[in-house]
């Protein structure tokens, strides 16, 4: 048996050819292909053109593996041995076409998958880079918006206090709402920037998950029903009511999801659920879900919806910044969770995530429903004294609007300084009750001037209350200004009330 196969193998797969010293064929057994004696092999296939001539060969055989040959209509993959014999060259050609073809298909799928992985990784890197660049650009841009927006908001407030017709009041309200939206947008951008730059810290404090759920169900329940959409909310009683986590950020995530559902749903229902996946030791995995019967998202767009400013399938009637879902994604990522989405065009969407919370078994109910109410608002001082205020600000629109606000109260004398260098001179010459100091000033920055003032030898100068005004809204910026000696810091844009409140707070 074996002998038979061996013979079959040898006879069918190997061809021997002898060449003379000029490279012409003298003999061939033609097992694989036909060659007439006297012919030159290079005319058959260019492979043979580059095999060494007899003078260049030694006794050792040269092995060429896996050579693809094509004659007429046959594709062959062969191993070729070239060996010098006395006055001639012996070629042995073994046909391994089948064997090599199966190897080819293995190599094919291997190489394809390596290349595919490589390109996917590259594409992701590119997307991340683009996202980072975009966010940076928007950060810078929104920073620049803070000054003009401050004056829009301030002037609207001033207008509000003048005699307006009903029509004008209506228009002013529009103006205010738009300004507020713009303001929210800027704050959202800031959040994204902070997450991106790793500046957003996630708190781990005990809070009532149940209360948070109730609060959101209540507020959104009302909004949703007002739109004529039905609202279901499901709280799983197996969930711990109190957990450890970042209430504020979780609130931000849920608000964005609920807002989104509300925005993109015209009829049908919206549901908000918290269910227990599992509990172990002192941990609980919670499935949080917001689903709607809204416009839905086409399958092809699902991956893009979490990119910032990427409002896929934009419906011009629906207002939005396209930042909400980016914030959701990034915040959840920070909290060790991941937003998931299932959606069908024109049917609706379901957003959900699983979040593991630590909780105390049998934990006491402690934190009240809401965060502490804001500190009692400071009322304007009711006395006849006029305060002297030095306003240091180089942006003219902000300057003008603050000036107006201050004068309108009839309680202030206001001096202006454009340039940081003039401030020191001014504070020595005049007894000011307060300095309103922009941080970004030409020549010398506001926080530096503050340091210089705090180092003054004269008590009356040294202790002047200073309120910083800044477009730099990162917490670390604000801390730095407070450390420099500012009593308070206002972030642009701010509203008239907040501004006056802060001012009255620092005045003795």
């Amino acid at each position: 048996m074996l002998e038979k196969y061996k013979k079959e193998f040898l006879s069918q797969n190997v061809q021997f050819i002898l060449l003379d010293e000029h490279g012409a064929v003298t003999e061939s057994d033609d097992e694989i292909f036909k060659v007439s004696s006297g012919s030159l092999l290079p005319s058959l296939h260019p492979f043979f053109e580059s095999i060494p001539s007899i003078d260049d060969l030694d006794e050792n055989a040269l092995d060429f593996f896996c050579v693809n040959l094509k004659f007429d209509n046959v594709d062959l993959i062969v191993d070729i041995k070239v060996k010098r014999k006395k006055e001639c060259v012996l070629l042995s050609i073994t046909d391994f076409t089948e064997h090599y073809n199966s190897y080819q298909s293995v190599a094919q799928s291997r190489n394809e998958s390596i290349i595919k992985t490589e390109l996917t990784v590259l594409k992701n890197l590119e997307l991340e880079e683009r996202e980072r660049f975009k966010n940076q650009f928007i950060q810078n841009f929104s920073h620049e918006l803070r000054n003009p927006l401050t004056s829009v908001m301030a002037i609207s407030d001033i207008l509000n206090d003048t005699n307006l017709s009903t029509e004008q009041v209506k228009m002013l309200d529009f103006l205010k709402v738009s300004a507020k939206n713009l303001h929210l947008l800027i704050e959202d951008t800031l959040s994204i920037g902070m997450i991106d730059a790793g500046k957003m810290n996630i708190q781990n404090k005990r809070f009532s998950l149940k209360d948070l759920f109730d609060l959101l169900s209540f507020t959104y329940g009302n909004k949703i029903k007002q739109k004529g959409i039905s609202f279901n909310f499901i709280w799983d009683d197996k969930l711990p009511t109190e957990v450890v986590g970042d209430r504020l950020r979780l609130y931000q995530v849920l608000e964005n999801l609920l807002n989104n559902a509300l925005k993109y749903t015209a009829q049908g229902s919206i549901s908000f659920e918290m269910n227990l996946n599992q509990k172990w030791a002192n941990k609980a995995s919670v499935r949080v879900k917001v689903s709607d019967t809204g416009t839905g998202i086409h399958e092809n767009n699902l991956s893009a919806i979490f990119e910032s400013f990427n409002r896929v399938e934009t419906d011009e009637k629906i207002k939005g910044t396209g930042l909400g879902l980016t914030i959701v994604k990034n915040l959840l990522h920070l909290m060790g969770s991941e937003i998931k989405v299932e959606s069908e065009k024109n049917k609706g969407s379901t957003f959900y995530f699983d979040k593991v919370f630590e909780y105390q078994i049998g934990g006491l109910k402690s934190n009240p429903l809401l965060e502490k109410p804001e500190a009692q608002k400071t009322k304007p001082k009711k006395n006849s004294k006029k305060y002297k205020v030095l306003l240091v600000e180089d942006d003219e629109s902000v300057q003008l609007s603050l000036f107006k606000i201050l004068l309108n109260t009839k309680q202030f004398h206001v001096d202006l300084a454009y340039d940081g260098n003039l401030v020191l001179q001014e504070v020595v010459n005049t007894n000011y009750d307060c300095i309103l100091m922009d941080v970004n000033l030409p020549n010398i920055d506001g926080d530096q001037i503050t340091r210089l003032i705090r180092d003054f030898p004269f008590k009356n100068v040294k202790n002047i209350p200073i309120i910083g005004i800044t477009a730099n809204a990162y917490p670390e910026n604000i801390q730095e200004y407070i450390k420099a000696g500012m009593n308070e810091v206002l972030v642009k844009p701010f509203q008239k009330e907040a501004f006056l409140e802060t001012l009255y707070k620092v005045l003795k």
Partner: protein
Amino acid sequence: MQKSKKVVVLGHFGVGKTSLIRRFVTNSFSDNYKVTIGVHITKKVVEISNENTISLILWDLEGTDKLDTIRNAYLLGTHGLVFVFDVTRPSTFEHLNNDLDIVRSKVPNTPLIIVGNKSDLVDLAELDVLFKKNSLSVDFVTSAKTGETVDDLFLKMATLLNEDA
């Protein structure tokens, strides 16, 4: 008899070696990727100047990122080398200088042309930056797809080999 020169085309897999040769020899292109195994050999006669022709025997080797494993028999008697990388895949040129050292040590004193292929997929201005960043000195930037500078590349090789002989 006509001069004939063996030119070996090498580089990582999928960079477009086969496609470059195909574009040069048959002036065609396919988007389908068929992995080359072993070696394919084709021939093309190149006219360098009037009645001065040279025939290039092009050895299209199976792509590999481990150049030291290329069989010596394949490289025996090589007159010219073309090293191809893919400008869209950093893995194919990240270690280019190292790869070239290996090639040069295996086949010393042989003209070597370095080619960045698939130029149709990238911005040419970006390429300059890329090459500088990776300190690559590239002789030709080609596209087997559009045919851009493919003929130039092989003509250059033919000219070098003609001078050599």
